[in-house]
C-alpha cells in the first residue's frame, strides 16, 4: 500500500533540480523523523519542521493519501433538539460508489464517549441535543459521492423546543439522563460578611468564541491485519483519543494505534474526539483506508467552543483601595455534552478574583447543559471569562476610588507567600507586580497623526472614519492562571531517549515522545533539551504515536514543563547508563558520591580527575543506550466543599496595556498597540515565546472586538470564515513584549508554560481602552460596532 509520508522524511533526499510535482510518494505509513536545528536551551533554535512547512512538504492530517482510500462524510442534525423517529439509509447505500453507511446501531462498543464523562453518543440514536450532532457516516469513492450519499439518508426528526437558556437549565427538566448541571462549586474564603468603604457591582457577559484553527479536523484510518486499526490524526492527546476510540470500537487498546499527523493548530479544539471514532468504524467496516476532512462549516459544528459566560460581581474595598472582599456568581453554558466543562468551571472559579490579595471571597460557579453547541477547552480555559469580569470590576473600583487603575492593581497584586481564594499559598514565583510594571513601562504610541494613512484609521480599507471624530483610549488588565492539570489529576508525561552511533559515525540521539506538536514548537524544544543535556548535536525526533507511553495533553500550557521534564529525565537516565557502562569497562567505582567522578562533556565521557576521556561513540561500545522516563509534577489535591485546597501546581501571570482608536459614530475600533509583561519563568526559546505571545494576543483581541459564534434558538448563524471573523494582518497592532524571567522552582529549566497567559488579559485590556475612548460601560465581549454606535453614555 502506498501512503503519503506524514512529514518530509529526513535526512533530506537530493531532489531534482527542477520543480517536481511529487506524485504521492511511497513511504512507510507515517514514521517520519525530524532533524534538529542548532541551538541549546535558552537559544532561539529554529523549528525542525520549518523547512518542510515552507516548502509545502509537511503532511498535515488532511494531506494523507493511500491507495484505494475512501472518503468519509458525516451526516449531522439540522435541529438543536429533536427525537429521531427513523433513519432510512437504503437510498444512500444504493448510490454507486458508496461503500458503507453507518448509524447508531453499527457501533460495536461503548455507544458514547467524552473526556471526563462519556455522555456524548458516537451517533445520535433517538435524541438530538444540539444542531450538528452526528447521526450517520458514509464512506464512498469520492468526497462528492460521500456528500450526496449523506444527503440521501432519510432521517425522520420530531423537533422540539430547544433548552437554550443556561439559567433556566439549572431547574429545567433534564435533557440528558445525567442531568443538566455539569458542576456547581462554591469557594468560600474568610468572612463572607466582611464590609468595606466602597462597593462596586457589575454583570458581564462573554460570547462563544471559536478556536478557529486553520487545519480542518481530518485523519485517515487504515484497518490492520490483526483486526485492529491504525489512525493518523491531528489531536492534542493521542492516548486519551486511543482509549475513547478503542472503547467505542469494542477493541482492546493495543489493537488501536494512533500516530500524530500534522496538526494545523489546536487551541483546545482538538482535545475532544471529533471524527476519530467515525473514520475508524468506516475503515473497519469497509476494510479499506478511509480519509475524512471536515469542511470549514462542518468544523464549526465538529468541535467544542469557548464557554459563553454570564457573571455577576461585587467588589468591596477600603477607601485606600485595598480589596476586602470579592463576591462572584459565574454561569457557564456548557452546551449539550460535558467535554471538559467541570474543569473549566473550576478554573473560572479559582481565578475569579484575579491575581490579587483577597482576604474574603464568595464564588458561586455553575456550568450547565443546554441544547446549544457543546463547549470545552479553549486557550485560557475558564480564566479568560473570569478575567473579563474581575478586570472590568477593578476599573470600576479605580473609578469609584478616584485612583489610577494601574496603581490600584499594583496595590493589590499577589506576591510570593500570599494565599489565593482557595487557601493555597503561593510557593513558586508570582511576579504579578513585575508584569504590571513591565506592561505599563512600554512607551505609548505617538498621538494620532493627522497625515497618517487613512488605512490606519478605524474601519481601515472602508475609509469611513472622519479623522477629527476618532478618539483614542488606553486600557489595562492583568490576569493569571494555573499551569498543568489540577485537582488531584494524575498528570504525567513519558519520553524515551536513545543514544547511539549514527550512520555517519557521529553520536546520534533519538527522542520518542507522544507530545502533540500543534504549532507551539515542542519539537524544537525537545531537541534543544537533548543538546543541552547530552551535548549531542544530532538529535532526531520520532513521530509521536501510541507506541510510547502517554505524554498527556498539549493543553494547560503544560508540554514545556511536563514533556520537557520527561525528555530531560530520559536524557539524565541515558547519560547515567552510559557513564555506568564506562565505569564498568574501566573498573571505576560508580557508587554514591563517586558517580561525580565521571561526566559527559562536549561529546566525551570525562574522568574529572583527568584519569581518562573517552569519545562518546567509543564509550557506547557499539551498543546504544536507551532510557524511558515518566515525569510527574508535584501532586495536587481536590477542592473541598468550601472550595479550599492545594488544587494547583504553578501559576503564570501576564498584564496587557491596549491603546485603541475608536470612531464612535460608526462604532469601529482599531487597536493601535498592545504592550505586555509576561511571567515566563525562563524563556527556553525566546523566538518561540514571542510567537506564543503575539499569537495569543491576537486571539484575545479577537474576543474583544470581533469573534463570536452567534447562536439563536440553538442554531449557529455564522459557521464560516465569511461570518466568523478572526484578526487579519490589518487588524493586528504593534505588540511590545517584556519577558519576566524568574526561574520557577521545581520546573525543568525553571520554565513556565507561555501559551495561555497572552490570551487572558488582552481581551479586558482592549475593552478597557474602548471604554476609555467612549465612556461607555461595555459589559459584553465581543464589543460590536452597534454596542458603540447605538449606545450613548
Amino acid at each position, binding site marked *: 500500500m502506498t501512503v503519503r509520508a506524514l512529514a518530509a522524511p529526513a535526512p533530506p533526499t537530493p531532489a531534482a533540480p527542477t520543480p517536481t510535482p511529487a506524485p504521492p510518494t511511497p513511504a512507510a505509513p507515517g514514521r517520519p523523523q525530524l532533524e534538529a536545528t542548532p541551538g541549546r536551551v535558552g537559544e532561539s533554535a529554529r523549528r525542525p519542521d520549518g523547512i518542510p512547512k515552507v516548502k509545502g512538504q509537511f*503532511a498535515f492530517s488532511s494531506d494523507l493519501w493511500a491507495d484505494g482510500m475512501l472518503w468519509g462524510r458525516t451526516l449531522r442534525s439540522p435541529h438543536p433538539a429533536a427525537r429521531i423517529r427513523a433513519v432510512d439509509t437504503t437510498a444512500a447505500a444504493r448510490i454507486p460508489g458508496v461503500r458503507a453507511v453507518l448509524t447508531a446501531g453499527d457501533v460495536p462498543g461503548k455507544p458514547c464517549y467524552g473526556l471526563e464523562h462519556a455522555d456524548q453518543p458516537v451517533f445520535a440514536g433517538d435524541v438530538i441535543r444540539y444542531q450538528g450532532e452526528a447521526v450517520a457516516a458514509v464512506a464512498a469513492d469520492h468526497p462528492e459521492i460521500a456528500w450526496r450519499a449523506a444527503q440521501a439518508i432519510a432521517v425522520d426528526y420530531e423537533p422540539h423546543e430547544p433548552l437554550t437558556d443556561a439559567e433556566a437549565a439549572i431547574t429545567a427538566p433534564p435533557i440528558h439522563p445525567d442531568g443538566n448541571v455539569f458542576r456547581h462549586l462554591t469557594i468560600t474564603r474568610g468572612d463572607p460578611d466582611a464590609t468595606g468603604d466602597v462597593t462596586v457591582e457589575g454583570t458581564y457577559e462573554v460570547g462563544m468564541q471559536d478556536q478557529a484553527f486553520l487545519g480542518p479536523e481530518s485523519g485517515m484510518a487504515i484497518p490492520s491485519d490483526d483486526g485492529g486499526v491504525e489512525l493518523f490524526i491531528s489531536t492534542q492527546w493521542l492516548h486519551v483519543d486511543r482509549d475513547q476510540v478503542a472503547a467505542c470500537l469494542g477493541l482492546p487498546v493495543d489493537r488501536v494505534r494512533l500516530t500524530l499527523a500534522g496538526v494545523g493548530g489546536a487551541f483546545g479544539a482538538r482535545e475532544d474526539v471529533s471524527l476519530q471514532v467515525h473514520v475508524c468504524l468506516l475503515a473497519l467496516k469497509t476494510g479499506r483506508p478511509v480519509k475524512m476532512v471536515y469542511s470549514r462549516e462542518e468544523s464549526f459544528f465538529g468541535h467544542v467552543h469557548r464557554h459563553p459566560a454570564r457573571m455577576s460581581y461585587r467588589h468591596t474595598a477600603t477607601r485606600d483601595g485595598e480589596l476586602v472582599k470579592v463576591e462572584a456568581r459565574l454561569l457557564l453554558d456548557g452546551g449539550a455534552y460535558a467535554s471538559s466543562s467541570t474543569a473549566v468551571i473550576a478554573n473560572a472559579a479559582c481565578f475569579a478574583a484575579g491575581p490579587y490579595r483577597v482576604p474574603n471571597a464568595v464564588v458561586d460557579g455553575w456550568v450547565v447543559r443546554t441544547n446549544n453547541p457543546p463547549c470545552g477547552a479553549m486557550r485560557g480555559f475558564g480564566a479568560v471569562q473570569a478575567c473579563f469580569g474581575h478586570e472590568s470590576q477593578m476599573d470600576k473600583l479605580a473609578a469609584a476610588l478616584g485612583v489610577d487603575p494601574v496603581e490600584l492593581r499594583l496595590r493589590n497584586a499577589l506576591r510570593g507567600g500570599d494565599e489565593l481564594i482557595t487557601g493555597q499559598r503561593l510557593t513558586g514565583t508570582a511576579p504579578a507586580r513585575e508584569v504590571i510594571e513591565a506592561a505599563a513601562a512600554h512607551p505609548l504610541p505617538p498621538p494620532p497623526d493627522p497625515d497618517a494613512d487613512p488605512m490606519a484609521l478605524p474601519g481601515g480599507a472602508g475609509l469611513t472614519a472622519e479623522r477629527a471624530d476618532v478618539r483614542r483610549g488606553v486600557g489595562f488588565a492583568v490576569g493569571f492562571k494555573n499551569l498543568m492539570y489540577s485537582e488531584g489529576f494524575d498528570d504525567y508525561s513519558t519520553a524515551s531517549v536513545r543514544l547511539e552511533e549514527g550512520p555517519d559515525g557521529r553520536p546520534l540521539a533519538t527522542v520518542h515522545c507522544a507530545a502533540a506538536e500543534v504549532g507551539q514548537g515542542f519539537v524544537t524544544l525537545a531537541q534543544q533539551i537533548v543538546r543541552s543535556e547530552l551535548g549531542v548535536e544530532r538529535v532526531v525526533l520520532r513521530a509521536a504515536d501510541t507506541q510510547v507511553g502517554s505524554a498527556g495533553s498539549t493543553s494547560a500550557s503544560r508540554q514545556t514543563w511536563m514533556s520537557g521534564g520527561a525528555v530531560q529525565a530520559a536524557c539524565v537516565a541515558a547519560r547515567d547508563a552510559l557513564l555506568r557502562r564506562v565505569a564498568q569497562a574501566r573498573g571505576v567505582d560508580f557508587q554514591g558520591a563517586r558517580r561525580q567522578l565521571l561526566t559527559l562533556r562536549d561529546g566525551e565521557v570525562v574522568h574529572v580527575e583527568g584519569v581518562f576521556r573517552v569519545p562518546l561513540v567509543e564509550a557506547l561500545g557499539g551498543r546504544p543506550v536507551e532510557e524511558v522516563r515518566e515525569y510527574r509534577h508535584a501532586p495536587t489535591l481536590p477542592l473541598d466543599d468550601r472550595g479550599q485546597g492545594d488544587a494547583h501546581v504553578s501559576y503564570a501571570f501576564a498584564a496587557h496595556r491596549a491603546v485603541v482608536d475608536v470612531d464612535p459614530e460608526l462604532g469601529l475600533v482599531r487597536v493601535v498597540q498592545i504592550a505586555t509583561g509576561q511571567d515566563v519563568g525562563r524563556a527556553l526559546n525566546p523566538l518561540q515565546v514571542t510567537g506564543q505571545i503575539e499569537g495569543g494576543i491576537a486571539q484575545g483581541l479577537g474576543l474583544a472586538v470581533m469573534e463570536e459564534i452567534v447562536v439563536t434558538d440553538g442554531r449557529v448563524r455564522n459557521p464560516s470564515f465569511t461570518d466568523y471573523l478572526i484578526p487579519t494582518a490589518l487588524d493586528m497592532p504593534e505588540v511590545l513584549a517584556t519577558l519576566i524571567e524568574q526561574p520557577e522552582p521545581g520546573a525543568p529549566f525553571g520554565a513556565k508554560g507561555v501559551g495561555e497567559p497572552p490570551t487572558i488579559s488582552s481581551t479586558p485590556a482592549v475593552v478597557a481602552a474602548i471604554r476609555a475612548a467612549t465612556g461607555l460601560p461595555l459589559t459584553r465581549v465581543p464589543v460590536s460596532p452597534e454596542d458603540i454606535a447605538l449606545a450613548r453614555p
Partner: protein
Amino acid sequence: MSDQSQSPGYAEAGRAEGSAVPAGSPGGVAPLIDESATYALRVNGRGEAVKAAWLGESLLYVLRERLGLAGSKNACEQGECGSCSVFVDGTLVCACCVLAADAVDADIVTVEGLAQGEALSDVQRCFVDEGAVQCGFCTPGLIVAVTDLLDRCPHAGDMEVREAISGNLCRCTGYGRIFAAVDAVRRRREARA
C-alpha cells in the same frame, strides 16, 4: 410536529439544490465521474494529465488529491483564508475557487514550485529564520502571497504588506513574525540590489 428532512441541514452554504442526487437515473443516481473526461494541466512547468475526474473538482482538489501536490492548503475552501494561494498565469488566486477543468492551458505554479530543489527561496528562508511558522497551515499560502507581493512591489510599505496579506488568515502567529519575515526579505533584496 414532524419534519421529513433529507438534508444534513446545518446550512451547507454554497451547495445548490441542483447538486443533490439527480432523480430518474439508474438506481436513482447518475454516475459522478465521466470516465472519458480527460484534460491536462501544466503545473510547475510540468504537464499533468487528469483522467476520469469529476468535472466539478476545484483546482485545489485536483492539485492535492490527484496530482499529489498537497502543499496548497484547504482551510476554508470558500475563498476566505488564502491557504490555497497559487499562481495561475502569474496571477495570485485561491485554488479552491477555480475549477480545475477551467485552468487547462494555464501556467499553474504552486508552493512546491518556488524552491529551487533543496535551495529555499528567500521568502521561504526568511519565514523559517524569523519564526513566522508555527503550525504552518497558513504558511504555503503566505509564501505564495508574499512572493507575489514582493515580486510586484519590491518596495511595498508596511501598510501595503498588511493589506496584501490580509486575505491570508493565520491563527497561530498574530502575524508579528510574518511581518518580520517580509522585512527580512526586503532587506536581503535591497542589500543585493
